[in-house]
């Protein structure tokens, strides 16, 4: 059994994950990085991305994080996110529809391009997470 640390992923609607893990790979706004036990204290913002948790028994689990920020301490990491999902919670059809809609809106100038861009990004991450993991 490898060394582990406590990870909490909390969304506004409730605690998404709370448990001991060996490693988590997330993408920060400055690039992808992994958090291991005994990490130096760090607070950083996260991008919309797929994350990967590796448990003490080497099992892996994937999920999506839609933005947020992480407070990292040697024994404990808290990730506050706008929304998090496991692949099994993702509705592929809906994500694909959202992607098409966002693409449509990007072409149409009457919609807010920035929002459509974010919606598109989210849809793509959801689809990737669902299809690859």
């Amino acid at each position, binding site marked *: 059994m490898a060394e582990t640390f406590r990870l909490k992923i909390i969304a506004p*609607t409730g605690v998404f994950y709370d448990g001991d893990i060996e490693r988590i790979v997330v993408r920060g*706004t400055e690039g992808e990085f992994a958090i291991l036990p005994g990490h130096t204290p760090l*607070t950083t913002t996260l991008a919309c991305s797929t994350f990967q948790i590796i448990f003490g028994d080497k099992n892996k689990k994937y999920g999506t994080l839609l933005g947020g920020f992480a407070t990292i301490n040697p024994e404990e990491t808290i990730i506050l996110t706008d929304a998090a999902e496991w692949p099994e919670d993702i509705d592929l059809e809906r994500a694909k529809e959202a992607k098409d809609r966002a693409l449509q809106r990007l072409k149409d100038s009457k919609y807010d391009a920035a929002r459509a861009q974010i919606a598109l990004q989210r849809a793509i991450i959801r689809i990737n997470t669902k299809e690859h993991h």
Partner: protein
Amino acid sequence: MAENVQDIKRRIKSVNSTKQITHAMEMVASAKLRKSRELAENRYPYFESMIHSMGRIVERTGKSRNVFMNQREVKKTAYIVITGDKGLAGGYNVNVAKKVEEHIKDKNNAVIFAVGARGRDHFRNRDYKIQEEFLGISEHPDFFKARQITGLVMEAFKNEEFDEVYMVYTRFLSTISQHPYMMQLLPLEAEDLKPIKKEKVVEVAETKKDLTGMLYEPDPETLLDYLIPNYVANTLYGAMIESAASEQGARRTAMESATTNANDMIDALTLKFNRVRQAAITQEISEIVSGAEALN
């Protein structure tokens, strides 16, 4: 006893059907109340962690140059008014509206962001300026909706359309007691964000260590830029949840007393009904008797 037996019967029937409705509404409100409370409990972990993180950053940066944390001369005030979309909840909607009206000194210097149809109607009828309205969400608070609202409000605040923002909602004290409450949402007070005193005593040593060791990436100011909108949105989300719970609580109480009143009314009417019926029978008997006597 001029009243007709048939009329009384009809009234009993009508009161009874009203009673059934109020009773059903009471039940529905109880069920919804439970759901709202669950939402409120689920929100706490996020909110607590966020306040904690923000408190630390603020402690570190001291006075922030962030536009949302700087006081400026107040010319115009915005109010986010959270009410329900429906009535029949006792004084729930009116109390919130009253609270806002008490605070507004000059109609021309106030703008309203109305969450909920009742609040909107109230202020529209009284010629207040309603900048935005959000209907149909009071009963189902949603974080993304809350963020959309605060997004609009913060944008306007940044453009100096108004210089302070108050949020008015109903605090849920218990299932039978709810109070309208007003809090300042913007600009943020750095003091409010610092860790609560009670907590500080326990964590003094740990906090000190964290403050020296904690790295921030990117810099604390950029983090604050991210955190503040989230904090404000989450505060509103919390208020919306609490208001939703309060609405259901108020409605439950109102409907409970309506049901009790209907029961009392039915009792009184049934008594009256029996008396009238008895009087009619007595009268008939005495008529027959006096008729028979006249024949003799």
